[in-house]
């Protein structure tokens, strides 16, 4: 029966990816603290593990390259070679090379650059001759069919053989399987008197004669594991001593200190292995299905609630209780299941230490990266989605925001610039902040560019904050020249769009000379939404709570219709434009005047709008259903949900709705 090793390759690839990430982060930490033994051991183990796995699962190029790396790392961890910045760079290069080699093995990439050069440098750095033992390769055992021969075997197992779990009788049985034993005798002379005897030691020897066609290698094979400290004398019985003598006196060696010290639990790079023991990898697809089903359950629950509310339940006391109990369980189930999709944002932050390290050296700037709130949890889809936007923001900071050391010192700042990435919960959402203590945004330049591009006119009186938000307009860029990293003019608006697509918002604040901070606000999850329901005639609409500032019942005296501008409502000291929902959706409202209905005040891209509806219904958690699956994307609609009575309610996409509204006003003007 043959076993197909290739089915385990996927597991190996996933594992190697984790190992390489751990290698990288340990190495970067090591640069700050070159004497940390645990980090050195960790790096060695990563390389060692990948070497073993790649050899076993059939990737010899990876194995042989990693072997050289491992040799070097062994020297390092035994303090025979010291890590300095040159060596560190070499190791990072090797790491990147390993990633490429593994990509090739996966079939993702056609071919890799030749390993020979790097290997030579690794060997050089080891300053020792290439390790005597080459990469282990399987040697096929040759069996030469021969004619029958008569052999004599003298066999005395070493005293400790049994202690090591060996079973001499089993070995003799195995021998019987390949040879016809004609005579066997047991030598008990070695057994000491009872008082001196160690019951776990082996004192007996055997001597036997056998006829066999097997060759010598096969005949001594059963004794392979005790050969080192036993006597296994095989002779051909023509008396000529031909067999190899395997007897070597066992030399007790001083115990090399091999017990590893307990790993510090504070180790951040820690324990993908430790965690591994208690986790199961589940495919995202299965999880999504599960979440969908739970969503359905919640909807059924609502439907059940609606129905039981209308029943005369005085006779059905048990029913109300049961339904209420079920509701509690469903809600809890929902929470747990939603939690399954949550991952720590650490995953999204993972690429940045290396990225910042590399970018800083390319730009010749000194930059310190500070991460905080890495344990903040976020829906897996969101983590994937913010990766690129975050990268762009980081690149912006490094490229434009943070100044070279000299400039900083001249400005009275410390030479090392600080770039911080932080994440925290705030209300019902997550905020991710990318901040630097660099130059800050240049208000004049932004304004000039915006005017130049016709986005605003020279006499628009804009606050600094509004000017900063202009950078999110498409085609905007104030970089003097297009540098390699960013400044191509596609940056911030793509970031904005990407964030908006996942239901979030971006806001930038800056202090000239002191720095710049970009805050991304994201909903906790993409599948479920906290929303305010409202009605226009028979239609129910839902607006996400994150967009809502407040809800009001407007008074007649506060609503004005201003020529050339449109309807506005006065809220405390501000005048907000009024968006009539029924107009936006082409439905007939039940109310005739704004003061008969309710208004929902929303904030969107720095502007505030009042949305007029017939009446407000409750607030609830709704399961977001896609409109696009079977229909298409509709501007102003983020999705749909199913109400307790089975009807469909539309979920409003506030920015889209507002855009449509303003577009209409422009046309009318």
């Amino acid at each position, binding site marked *: 029966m043959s076993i197909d090793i290739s089915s385990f390759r996927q597991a190996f690839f996933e594992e190697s990816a984790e190992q390489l990430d751990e290698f990288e982060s340990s190495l970067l930490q090591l640069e700050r603290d070159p004497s940390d033994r645990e980090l050195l051991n960790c790096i060695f183990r990563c390389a060692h593990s990948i070497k073993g796995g790649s050899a076993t699962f059939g990737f010899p190029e990876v194995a042989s390259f990693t072997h050289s790396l491992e040799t070097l790392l062994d020297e390092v961890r035994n303090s025979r070679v010291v890590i300095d910045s040159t060596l560190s760079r070499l190791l990072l290069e090797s790491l990147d090379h390993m990633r490429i080699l593994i990509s090739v093995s996966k079939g993702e990439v056609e071919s890799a650059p030749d390993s020979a050069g790097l290997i030579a440098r690794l060997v050089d750095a080891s300053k020792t001759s290439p390790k005597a033992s080459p990469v282990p390769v399987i040697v096929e055992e040759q069996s030469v069919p021969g004619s029958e021969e008569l052999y004599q075997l003298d066999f005395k197992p070493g005293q400790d053989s049994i202690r090591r779990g060996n079973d001499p009788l089993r070995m003799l049985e195995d021998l019987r399987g390949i040879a016809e034993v004609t005579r066997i005798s047991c030598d008990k002379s070695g057994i000491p008197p009872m008082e001196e005897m160690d019951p776990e030691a082996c004192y007996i020897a055997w001597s036997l004669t056998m006829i066999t066609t097997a060759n010598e290698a096969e005949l001594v094979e059963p004794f392979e594991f005790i050969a080192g400290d036993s006597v296994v004398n095989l002779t051909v019985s023509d008396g000529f001593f031909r067999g190899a003598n395997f007897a070597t006196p066992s030399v007790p060696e001083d115990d090399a200190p091999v017990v590893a010290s307990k790993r510090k639990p504070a180790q951040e790079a820690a324990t993908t292995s430790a965690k591994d023991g208690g986790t199961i990898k589940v495919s995202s697809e299965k999880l999504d299905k599960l979440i*969908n089903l739970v*969503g*359905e359950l919640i*909807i059924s629950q609502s439907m059940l609630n609606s129905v039981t509310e209308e029943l005369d339940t005085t006779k059905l006391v048990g029913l109300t209780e049961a339904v209420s109990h079920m509701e509690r369980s469903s809600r809890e189930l929902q929470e747990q299941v939603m939690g399954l999709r949550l991952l720590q944002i650490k995953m999204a932050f993972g690429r940045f230490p290396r990225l910042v390290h590399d970018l800083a050296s390319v730009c010749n700037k000194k930059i310190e990266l500070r991460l905080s709130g890495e344990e903040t949890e976020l829906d897996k889809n969101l983590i994937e989605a913010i990766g690129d936007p975050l990268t762009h923001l980081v690149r912006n900071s490094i490229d434009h925001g943070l100044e070279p050391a000299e400039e900083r010192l001249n400005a009275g700042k410390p030479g090392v610039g600080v770039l911080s990435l932080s994440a925290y919960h705030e209300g019902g959402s997550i905020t991710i902040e990318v901040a630097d203590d660099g130059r800050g945004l240049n208000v004049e330049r932004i304004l000039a560019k915006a005017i130049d591009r016709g986005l605003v006119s020279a006499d628009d009186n804009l606050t600094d904050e509004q000017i900063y938000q202009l950078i999110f307009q498409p085609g905007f860029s104030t970089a003097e020249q297009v540098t390699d990293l960013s400044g191509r003019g596609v940056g911030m608006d793509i970031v904005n769009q990407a964030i908006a697509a996942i239901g979030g918002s971006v806001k930038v604040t800056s202090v000239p000379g002191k720095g710049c901070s970009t805050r991304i606000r994201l909903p906790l999850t993409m599948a479920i939404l906290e929303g305010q329901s409202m009605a226009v005639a028979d*239609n129910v609409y839902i607006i996400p709570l994150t967009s809502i500032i407040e809800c009001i019942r407007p008074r007649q005296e506060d609503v004005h219709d201003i020529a050339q501008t449109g309807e506005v409502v006065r809220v405390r000291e501000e005048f907000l434009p009024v968006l009539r929902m029924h107009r*936006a*959706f*082409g*439905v007939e409202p039940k109310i005739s005047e704004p003061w008969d209905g309710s208004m929902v005040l929303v904030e969107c891209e720095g502007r505030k709008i009042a949305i007029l509806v017939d009446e407000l219904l409750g607030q609830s958690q709704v399961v977001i*259903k*896609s*409109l*696009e*699956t*079977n*229909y*298409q*994307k*509709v*501007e*102003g*609609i983020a999705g*749909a949900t*199913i109400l307790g009575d*089975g*009807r*469909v*309610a*539309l979920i409003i996409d506030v920015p889209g709705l507002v855009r449509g509204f303003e577009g209409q006003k422009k046309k009318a003007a």
Partner: protein
Amino acid sequence: METEQKKLPEGTDLASYTNQFLTFTLADEEYGVDILKVQEIKGYVATTRIPNAPPHVTGVLNLRGTIVPIIDLRRTFNLPEVVYDQFTVIVVVVVHDRVMGMIVDSVSEVMNIMAEDIQPPPNLGKGGSNALRGLGKVDDKLVILLDIDAVLLDEASLATAA
């Protein structure tokens, strides 16, 4: 979002299914669509309007948890409007990997129409559409066989174009 697979009985000769149609009436004419495209049949329920939708899309419905757009075939074919009543039916089809519903006056039956009883669609000149698969004749009755993919192509392609 899953689309229900039609389960064919064991030992089904697939060839015998290629000429099975679900027939329904629209404005006193009998129409038929390929049975394999039909997922289910539902009584008419009021839909939720979608803003800026083309006129023949009356809105969307909740179909066991999935949001499904509903098309009024009368509007698609420029037939006069009627009031929907208890016989009005929504035929749910799967077309271009999307689930959609079409409102018809009433559903008749599932029929086998042999290939030899199907005539190619007449050439109606410029005004004609390619929405017809052919004209079927069953017991002196004319069944207009629709190519439902072509009829609903607009709806399906709207999404990809967006």
